């Protein structure tokens, strides 16, 4: 697969662009125009309408929901330039990518790297078609940020493992078909005793209990494993290789949590436009409250820098052929700015921006409040800000621990 465009690339590009446009014209239902992916929300899956289902199947068929994944496993087999064309044309047409979730963001790329041929054949195509929902079995109640301290034990029973233990913060556990989990196969070594395995959520002994969050939503579960039989072929990589594989997966998670693109999408409308609706303006349309205006500008300036930093991280990584050292700051900076934005939104709306329920609040107001609360988790999960600081100080800055 070409990673650099050939001399006649532009012609190919145009041809491909036409192909995508024709595909959209033929398959994208007008009624879904400019609506987001209904399945992407943290609230869990809503019911698919026939139009949504048709669109998902059409995109899944082509593999364009996972455009750069290999064709032989159901991906699009596209190069990056082509993938960008798909994205651009979808955006132009007001269409969304109906394929998503943890399978796409984290598990798929990891399995493509570490999985056996059989595992890829079995698990990747349904992800590309958006048929199977995956959840993550990582955190445990007594481990917190110290992930390697996990206790869930998988006992070797010859042809299968017998898994016992408890996971928590299982995103969408109540709706998931399968779970990728890190479990302990050897109690004698903290890191090397960890293995990475795949568990069917309908195996007897798996029980999920949704956790109500301060936002009132229940996007996560506690997941209990009681004598759960997991076939040996569900082990990914070698026994004891789970920590390595698991960390690799977290890198995919971090990229997704902090990437400028997804953060920008999270952000929604510009604060200044919202402020103009809620607050007094001068004749020239500027905000009448100079203090609020100053605060918004202060936020938007730093947000501009953050978008530049995110882009720079990508450019540098590409140029260096490795991960840029500033990638380490993206999650920390992006999540903190996101929280700051949510707080500013409350300041802009006053008490109208603190609604919990009732017709006197618009949907967008109510969603902002839930988002403000849920957003407090962004500096905790996926490696808390404190963990990020440790990583930056030790790995990037070389400030070693006291021996």
């Amino acid at each position, binding site marked *: 697969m070409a990673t650099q465009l050939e001399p006649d690339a532009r012609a190919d590009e145009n041809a491909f662009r036409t192909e995508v446009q024709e595909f959209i014209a033929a398959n994208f239902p007008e009624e879904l125009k400019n609506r987001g992916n209904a399945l992407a929300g943290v609230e869990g899956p809503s019911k698919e309408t026939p139009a949504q289902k048709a669109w998902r199947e059409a995109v899944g068929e082509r593999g364009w929901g996972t455009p750069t994944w290999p064709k032989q496993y159901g991906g699009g087999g596209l190069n990056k330039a082509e993938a960008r064309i798909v994205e651009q044309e979808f955006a132009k047409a007001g269409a969304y990518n109906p394929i998503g979730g943890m399978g796409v963001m984290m598990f798929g790329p990891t399995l493509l790297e570490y999985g056996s041929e059989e595992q890829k054949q079995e698990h990747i195509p349904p992800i590309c078609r958006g048929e199977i929902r995956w959840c993550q079995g990582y*955190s445990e109640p*007594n*481990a*917190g*940020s*110290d992930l390697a*301290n996990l206790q869930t034990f998988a006992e070797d029973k010859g042809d299968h493992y017998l898994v016992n233990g408890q996971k*928590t*913060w299982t995103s969408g556990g109540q709706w998931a078909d399968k779970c990728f989990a890190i479990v302990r196969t050897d109690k004698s070594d903290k890191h090397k005793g960890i293995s990475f395995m795949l568990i069917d959520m309908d195996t007897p002994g798996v029980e999920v209990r949704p*956790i*109500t*969050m*301060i936002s*009132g939503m229940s996007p996560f579960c506690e997941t209990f494993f009681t004598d759960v039989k997991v076939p040996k072929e569900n082990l990914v990589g070698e026994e004891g290789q789970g920590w390595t594989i698991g960390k690799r997966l977290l890198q995919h998670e971090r990229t997704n949590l902090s990437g400028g693109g997804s953060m920008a999408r999270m952000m929604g409308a510009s604060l200044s436009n919202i402020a103009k609706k*809620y607050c007094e303006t001068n004749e020239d349309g500027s905000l009448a*409250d100079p*203090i*609020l205006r100053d605060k918004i500008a202060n936020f938007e300036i730093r947000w501009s820098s953050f978008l530049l930093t995110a882009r720079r991280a990508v450019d540098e990584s590409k140029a260096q052929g490795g991960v840029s050292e500033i990638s380490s700051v993206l999650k920390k900076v992006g999540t903190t700015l996101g*929280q700051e934005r949510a*707080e500013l939104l*409350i*300041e802009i*709306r*006053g*008490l*109208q*921006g*603190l*609604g*919990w*329920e*009732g017709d*006197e609040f618009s949907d967008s107001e109510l969603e902002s*409040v839930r988002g403000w*609360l849920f957003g*407090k*988790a962004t*500096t*905790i*999960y996926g490696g*808390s*800000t*404190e963990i990020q*600081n440790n990583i930056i100080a030790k790995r990037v800055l070389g400030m070693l621990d006291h021996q």
Partner: protein
Amino acid sequence: MAVLNEEQEMLRDMARDWAKNESPVAEFRKVRAGGEPQAYNADAYATMAQMGWAGVIIPEEHGGSDFGFMSAGLVIEELGKTLTASPLIATTIAASAIILGGSDEQKAKWLPKLASGEAVATLAVDESARHDPSSIETSVSGGKMTGKKAFVHEAHGADLFVVAAKDGLYLVENGDGVSLTTRKLTDQRNHADIAFDGAAAEKLEGGGDSLLEDVLDRARVLTAAEMLGMAQAVFDTTLDYLKQRVQFSQVLATFQALQHRMADLFADLAQMRSAVEGGLQAIDSGFGVAQAATVAKAEANRVLHLISNQGIQLHGGIGMTDEYDVGFYLKRARVLESSWGSSSYLRDRFARLSKY
């Protein structure tokens, strides 16, 4: 904290014990589960009034104990620690309006009822989602009030409203011409918009030109006292949690980065307490009330904002769950921060009072 006299220490200890034993956060969970717009336990409020807490600032001749605002603040702080939902602050603010501006008759009619808990009252000033006592449209003509008030605290269940109209403060009894629309905020407490449509209104003629601001200053300081209790509770809970929770085979409290963060918050909390107690003492002494009240609420806003956020962050995932209490403080915090003056409103006021 401020040096207290014996009466005050007794009052504080009583409130502390009661809040801890009879009104822990679990009690608010019950109220919340009930889903009533009034969002407080009327029996609990009756008990509080029996203990004399509704009459702390009310003169003895009207059935109160006349212990003053510092004493009222002590009780409110303790109740704030456990997020006790009650109309105590609202009623105390309303009582202060009657004390400052009411005629002898008005005082005789209402203060004993407020002190005994027989009646509940609240102050209604703002007409939009932001505190702005300079833009009031509500008016009274021929003893009838017309206008709208927004996000009134403890409105459901109130017998009496102290209402700001263009030309001053009025007493309006709940009844004909008064209609409430529930506004359920993130703290899930008792808030409502009120429409006055020809409701009978009786003016508070005393108190001079500054009556409204004087009453608002009392609202600011008493609200700041609740916020102080909340900040203290979050700080204490967080400190306990850090001392217990083990990560990477180490108690969290032993991580220096967290130690220094807690030291910062401890200093901020000290500043907040000084400011809030300074506000309460200023009201009792009658000197520099406006400035002290502005400082009190501004510092309460600043520090509770910080501590309520850090409380969540330092608890990690568990703090994000509804099962754990710390999120309740965060939600209540923002509602109180937005009431009776946001930080930038208060800074503007401080500058105005200092003539710059």
